């Protein structure tokens, strides 16, 4: 979606086990849910 809007040089960082050890862990594991950092640039 970022590229569809116009962002360029889009990067995705390493996943974080956001819900590990929390009560949402079971559902997170079921659907392989992780947190990610994203970055994209608006062209000059």
């Amino acid at each position, binding site marked *: 979606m970022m590229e569809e809007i116009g962002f360029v040089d889009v*990067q995705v960082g390493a996943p974080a086990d*956001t819900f590990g050890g929390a009560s*949402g862990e079971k*559902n997170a594991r079921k*659907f392989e*849910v992780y947190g990610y*950092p994203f*970055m994209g*640039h608006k062209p000059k």
Partner: protein
Amino acid sequence: MSAELPVDPVALREEVKSKYREVATNPHGEYHFHTGRMAAKKLGYDAALVDRMPDQAVESFAGVANPFSLRPLQKGEKVVDAGSGAGFDCFIAAQLVGSTGRVVGVDMLSEMLEKSRASAKRLELDNVEFREGIIEKIPVPDGWADVVISNGVINLCADKKQAMQEIWRVLKPGGRLQFADIANGKPVPSSALRNIDLWTA
């Protein structure tokens, strides 16, 4: 409601408000996600920046990853935090951009705004301010921001494309979006996508 959206955006916004109002007023309650210093540590935030903050500024943090991990902010940059909650990421950003930079946190919850403003005062940060608003209509002029950050907010928007377009509007040419959010590796059933209660469960 748009036929293309899985849920009604206004109804979803009210559900999100209810959940995060609780996080603001009862940060040590039972949630399906981590909060506070535990969350910051788990997500790899710079301990030197977090440790100097009082508990009030950290306890309601409920981010999902670290938006600063792919590139640190630079001194003097102007930053918008779309969905700033109790201000945690704004306080990190304010330390990184320094006195020549500027940070604007935007949130729709009065409880979060009240808490973030109190923390900014306590931290004696005069390069950060908080404004009431939503990510689909950010109260910042066109092309103002060098950087837009956000953490765990876009996934809670029914119309993600509209949110992205609004972020694009407030970014200056050459500016960048650095956000953290969740993504699923396995498909979520469409019945679950249409169930508003599950969006914040």
